[in-house]
């Protein structure tokens, strides 16, 4: 097990390294200009020189790696937050993204699991077909369509919720105020439709499978009621693949949804990607690319490894 974990981690670092190298070269061969600022000109020029932006690309990459390993320095933002470290710019965007996605998750996981369990128990009855049909529709419709529907009905028609998320200043300087929470609700709802449908489909599929397995027959034979057998045996076994996927989804939360962040103007990681691209703030863009790659790889590993942790019978790394 440990050997497998280490092998996966080493492979991940290797993959990350290759992708970062390719991205770095592709980003840094783009033409770039030193920002013009009369007051800060000297400081900018010094930083520019220190990052080696006048040197060849491979040399720049050497400096980039050296800075990461010695100073944990991923470059500098030039336009979005002038001369702030790129890492700091990124981390300041975590909280809004995380909060919106987290609210959506704590809402959609229980609802999704409950619906999925209900559909599996009532398999092939009318309510199961209703749920399955709705799941099909909700999974297919793109998230931005929900965003427009939410904006249209909850803002324009009913006026219950704000159109976009409040800025920090409007909501009292913190992401945890009640006002901020209310302004996040539209985005949370728009995100939740798809994920509720996803969880429902997944749970239903897993639970149907365990409900028809032979240990269920045994449980019923030894005298458990249907409810007891389902909750003690079937549900427990069905959760084995469900929990890891929730876990890996949770890590994936950090990268957020670009389109939802754009529509509801959430100052998060996804919006940073679009802004850094349109403002040509390449160091921040590079930082965002590294981050996305890292999150993607990490989520994959956690998904694979957590199977083994949750159910020790699943042996990792064996063919």
């Amino acid at each position, binding site marked *: 097990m440990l050997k497998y974990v280490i092998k996966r981690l080493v492979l991940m670092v290797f993959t990350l390294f290759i992708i970062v190298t390719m991205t770095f070269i592709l980003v840094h061969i783009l033409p770039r200009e030193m920002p013009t600022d009369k007051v800060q000109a000297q400081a900018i020029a010094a930083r520019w020189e220190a990052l080696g932006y006048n040197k060849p690309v491979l040399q720049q990459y050497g400096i980039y790696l050296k800075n990461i390993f010695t100073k944990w320095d991923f470059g500098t933002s030039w336009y979005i937050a002038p001369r702030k470290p790129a890492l700091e710019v990124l981390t300041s965007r975590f909280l809004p993204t995380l909060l919106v996605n987290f609210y959506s998750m704590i809402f959609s996981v229980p609802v999704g699991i409950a619906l999925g369990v209900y559909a599996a128990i009532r398999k092939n009855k009318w309510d199961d077909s209703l749920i399955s049909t709705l799941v099909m529709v909700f999974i297919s419709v793109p998230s931005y369509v929900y965003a427009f529907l939410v904006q*249209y009905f909850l803002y324009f028609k009913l006026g219950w919720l704000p159109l976009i998320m409040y800025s920090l200043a409007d909501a009292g300087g913190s992401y945890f105020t009640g006002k901020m929470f209310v302004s996040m609700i539209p985005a949370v709802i728009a995100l939740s439709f798809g994920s509720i449908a996803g969880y429902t489909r997944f749970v239903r599929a897993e639970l149907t499978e365990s409900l028809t397995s032979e240990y269920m027959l045994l449980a019923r034979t030894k005298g458990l009621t249907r409810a007891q057998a389902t909750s003690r045996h079937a549900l427990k076994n069905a959760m084995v693949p469900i929990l890891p996927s929730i876990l890996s989804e949770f890590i994936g939360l950090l990268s957020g949804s670009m389109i939802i962040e754009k529509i509801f103007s959430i100052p998060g990681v996804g919006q940073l990607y679009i802004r850094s691209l349109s403002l040509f703030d390449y160091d921040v863009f590079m930082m965002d690319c590294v981050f996305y790659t890292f999150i993607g790889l990490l989520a994959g590993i956690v998904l694979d490894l957590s199977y083994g942790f949750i159910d020790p019978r699943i042996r990792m790394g064996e063919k």
Partner: protein
Amino acid sequence: MADTTKKISPEKFTFVNIGERLTDVKFDDKPIGYFKDAWIRFRKNKASVVAAGIILLIFLFSIVAPFLTKNENSFMDTYFAKKGPYIYGLNKTGFMDGGVERDFSEVGLISKVAIGIGAADWDGHGATLEEGMASDQQPMLLIGEPEIKLDATKKEKRYYHGRINAYAEVGFIYKSIEQAELQHMRDWEAETGLHLLYPLVEDNKYNVDPADANNWYKSKKYQPVYTNEKGKIKNLDIEAGLVGMQLEDNYKRDADGNPVYYEFTGGGTLETAAYKVRVLYNNYYIYKNGFEPRYFFGTDSQGYDLMLRLAGGLRLSLMLAVSVSVINFIIGAAYGAIEGFYGGLTDLLMERVSDILSGVPFIIVATLFQIHLSAKLGAIPCLLFAYILNGWIGIAYRVRTQFYRFKKQEFVLAARTLGARDRRLIWKHIFPNSLGTIVTSTALIIPGVIFNESMLSYLGIVKLGTAQTTSLGTLLSDASAIWTNYPHLMILPALFISLLEISFNLFGNGLRDAFNPSLRNVED
């Protein structure tokens, strides 16, 4: 124990078909192969069949749409931008009449009604309200009962709820033309009986906005006024509603009191001299284009025919999705087959390559390709490359698994013993066994491609909007700031894209159930 065995003498036995050759009898029915079997199962799945039908309809729509209208792909009319579905002449039917529901203040309502009155008053005789309401250029389709409401300054004001034709609302515009065209317009008017040229409006203090050609009646601060018997200017009484209202025209008139239709504005010789005229836009549209305004789905935010834009976007999406899945199918099948068949070191090395590629987030690939190559290759090929870079990995993985399953089986060994080469073994013996899985996952690539394409163009990472064609995402993104006032701009593209996504998912699931009945209701 008594012997109960019957004794039968050997002579009683005869050979049944002695001297006949025993051969296999041909089946009366045709054999049902794997694909026929799948097809039978697929047909039974009603939802998937309906989904396939919807996909076919949408595809047909995207092909046929350009033939349903006289508008060209690149045809654009800025005056008629953001308008609803409209067929000229369907006024007051409530169906595709270009109508929009809106609340009007009193003066606002008068200014709209006045367009119709002005249109009836082409010779300056002073049309009545009745004439104006009867005119087919009257923008007001329905006027409701007045209601007292608070306006922005918390004053009580009377409002009318009404339905207005957004196309006729454009009303009159000023146009600068040459003398030759003026004559041409006159000829056209005589030929068709439609009125194009209308009297010019005096630029005096009774004209609120001289640039707006719709202010043909005398008004002060938007309040219509009239000259009473004593020659004094008085406010027109509009408290009692519109009945009996007589707007007083503010036309430019010559010394004889005849309205002036054109005015010299500059230029040198007779041929190049510019004239200012006031034209009714609906008729000018017919004059200019030779056909009436006809927009089955309305117009988009820039004034293109929304139906053509949608059809173009759908064609782009479908073309992209199908080519991506075909190319991914080919690459994935070849890659997975080689991996699975040879195994060992080849497999290990190729797995590492696909591991690394699959770690690259799609959005980053798409962005970098766009930045570097879109100027040279164009946006669409770049998008295609981005999809292909790691889109085939899922298929390769499935093919590889299938190859591991089948390559050790007896029929492969038998074929090998008979001297079949590797290539024959791979493509003739093992690959057909994995075809079902691959076809399914290829079909399920399509909804993802369509969604990602619309997302990238919505976010502006990929710029696909041109004068000729556009993408669904660009349509949505153009509409995103203004769609609450013009809902059709958002509803129609969103509806089509949702329908496509649902149908392709259902269709793919149907394929999966048909090819692998054991996988029914299992998501992978």
